[in-house]
């Protein structure tokens, strides 16, 4: 199956090419978060390394990914090693460390082959558990070498959805569920656990479709992953999604929808969390009501503890609005953005 819609990919590339790249060589940022991982609430440190950026983005990239802005095409292996060393100077101890690269840690063009394992080794000297991100195509030939880190390393892959049409026409992911499964099997064979990211509500998707797609994708993927993290859309700069949003053609998902997805997946045998960026803001998932804060807080607490009680007790008068939004939207051929009604 051809997994690229050339016209769609071209539009994403055009928007991406308008974005300025960074000239900095230091790591992008670091911050703390909590997550319910391996049966308990864990303190996690996140480190975002600055790299040359995702190789797929040099072609076109994904419709929602705005990490391009943080990348610097001039960065080399030495710069990345220095970033790691600088980071460890300030944060030299912790439980869980997540290392993101605005792309794929195992992409040799992004993080050269010879420094990948040394970086993992170095970081695992200071942290108990390490999570790195990568597209699946870079994993197949690498998993053998990761065997030594069994039980201490998790590889996260952004599957987003298991529906091939969603991946091709709404995200421009350029890989599919089969690629994920292959990478996942290889990693599992070598004792490395797998985390799957699912994107909730890509562009051009209706609210109810977003709920259904995320639930279905989570169920599909649960046999091939050890952990599912649901990312409801937040609108990042320089993306196709941002263009749609600015035109009044995209609305991030309702927090009600996120809650519905999480509650629907409570019977899944692996943890499902959702650490939301921009929760309650217009560029992030929101109900557009004063309940946004309590919803955001509750979803975060649930993701930190795995306790469904935080979600079960949520209520708000805006539920009716959400129900009506879903129903009315379903009657149309396209997705809608309710902000238009007030501003038009």
């Amino acid at each position, binding site marked *: 199956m051809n997994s690229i819609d050339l016209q769609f990919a071209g539009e994403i590339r055009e928007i991406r090419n308008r974005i300025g790249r960074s000239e900095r060589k230091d790591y992008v940022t670091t911050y703390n978060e909590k997550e319910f991982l391996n049966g308990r609430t864990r303190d996690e440190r996140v480190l975002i390394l600055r790299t040359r950026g995702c190789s797929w983005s040099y072609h076109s990239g994904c419709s929602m990914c705005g990490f391009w802005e943080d990348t610097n095409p001039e960065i080399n292996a030495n710069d990345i090693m220095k970033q790691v060393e600088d980071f460890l100077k300030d944060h030299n101890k912790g439980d869980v460390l997540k290392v993101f690269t605005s792309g794929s840690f195992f992409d040799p063009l992004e993080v050269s082959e010879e420094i990948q394992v040394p970086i993992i080794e170095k970081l695992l000297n200071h942290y108990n558990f390490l999570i790195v991100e990568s597209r699946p195509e870079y994993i197949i030939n690498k998993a053998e070498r990761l065997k030594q880190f069994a039980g201490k390393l998790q590889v996260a892959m952004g599957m987003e959805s298991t529906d091939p049409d969603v991946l091709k*026409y*709404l995200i421009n992911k350029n890989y599919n569920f089969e690629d994920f499964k292959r990478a996942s099997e290889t990693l599992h064979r070598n004792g490395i656990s797998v985390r799957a990211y699912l994107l909730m509500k890509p562009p*051009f998707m209706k609210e109810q479709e977003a709920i259904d797609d995320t639930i279905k994708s989570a169920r599909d993927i649960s046999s091939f992953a050890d952990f599912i993290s649901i990312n409801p859309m937040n609108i990042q700069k320089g993306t196709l999604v941002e263009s749609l949003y*600015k035109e009044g*053609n995209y609305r991030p998902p309702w927090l009600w929808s996120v809650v519905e997805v999480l509650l629907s997946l409570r019977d899944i045998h692996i943890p499902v969390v959702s650490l939301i960026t921009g929760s309650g803001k217009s560029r992030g998932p929101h109900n557009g009501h004063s309940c946004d804060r309590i919803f955001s807080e509750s979803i975060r607490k649930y993701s930190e503890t795995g306790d469904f009680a935080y979600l079960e007790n949520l209520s708000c008068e805006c539920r009716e609005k959400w129900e*009506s939004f879903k129903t*009315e939207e379903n009657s149309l051929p396209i997705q*809608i953005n309710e902000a238009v*009604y007030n501003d*038009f």
Partner: protein
Amino acid sequence: MKRNLLTRLGEIDNIEIPSVVKAGSIPIRESYSERNKFINISGKILTVNRINRFNTKEFVRTIIQLRKNYFDKLIYLPNAGLIYDYPILFYLGIDVLDDLPIRILGNDKCITEFGILEGENCLEKNMKEKERMVERIKLSLENSKFRELVEGYSMTSFGVEALRITDMLFYGDIEPFLDFRERDVRANNIESIYRPEIEYFRRRVKNLRQTSQNLLLIPCSAIKPYSQSKTHKILHSRIYPFLSGIQEVIVTSPLGLVPRELENFFPVKNYDIPVTGYWFKDEKEMLRNLAIEFFQNKKYDNVFFILSKEESEFLDIFPNAEGIIGNLNFENSEKIQKIISSRDIKKDRNQKRKIEFSNILRYLYDIDIEPSDLKIEDEGNRSFVKTGKEILLKKTVAGVSMEKGLGELLYRSGKRFIEVSGKFQGDSVYIPGIVSISSDVRPGNEIVLVYNGEIIGKGISQLSILDLQIQKKGLGISKISYFPKEK
């Protein structure tokens, strides 16, 4: 199918246009592979998937381009606009909207002319108001009053912005959709200044020739044509002896400047304005800009005027103009007569008439003939305008009309012709009898009728080449008369 600029009234694929349908009743379901495209075409229905809803200029540009490029399709814009946006949305060329925005608005927000107000049972009230508005829109389209309705009901910021942007920036795109069939034009609004028919007039007038060595600027009259009004008759009774040496130009809003020879034609004969004596800044600016262009290559021995203070503000472009600030009445007509008679007025009736006919040929038929190539022959109350032996125009009390010579000239230039599939009885040809139509023809234009490569007659077109794309039946040409066969 009836058309009013970009807006159509009728039915496509059993769907009434224009209409605001119940959300979901347009049977389009799009797969993900279709949704990421800007438009989706399914049979006759074009669904606008993506449009910049927050940038009015982009919005207008997109819809007008779609209307131009897909004239034979029904344009459906899902989820757009509340009740008072409907007029402008349909004006831009959208055929079908849906009621989703009203439904989503819910029961406690009532839509009014002055905004959305908190209220009770609003859904029902809004739906009724929606019905009323759609009926009004249809009625105005039926009666060729849609532009008047759009100007009157453009009450939201979006509506006003979109109308102004359309007029100011997209005239060129609207021009192929113009319609010159005679009808009343009510220029009641500041927005009327740039309505396309008016803008068309100004653009055509700019290039017309100077008809005399002297100029007289006078105000318009409520009665049309102006020369039938009491005030203009009084003026003529005083200055009649000099008229063959004076070009009369009427100063009026929103048309700007009307050379006397155009007073019998659309839209000059058909417009009406509220008379306050006060001119808005926009009107004055329009008048000044037009005057600068109209008079830039014209040189007069004398410039006379009777104009109100507001109308006369552009007169600084004529440093030696002399006349009266005031109304056109008996007293001022006498005064201007005195001024004019004190000057040496070079008269040349024949030359003035030739230039006037040359201007008429340019204005009505877009054909440029040197006045010196024209000859005028009067027969009783009829006049014939000729080049060589060929008769171009006939002027009677009923007006000006094409003769065979002009028909030949137009057909040879590829202009204003409609090819028909036979010579039909009666004075009409219906659309199935039309073979082709030149691209410059607009409804209301007098056209030459062509059959088998020969010109056979003339008539008034009821359509343009765009209309022919979508209309398969109905009246095509009216008021046909066949040219007599050559002996």
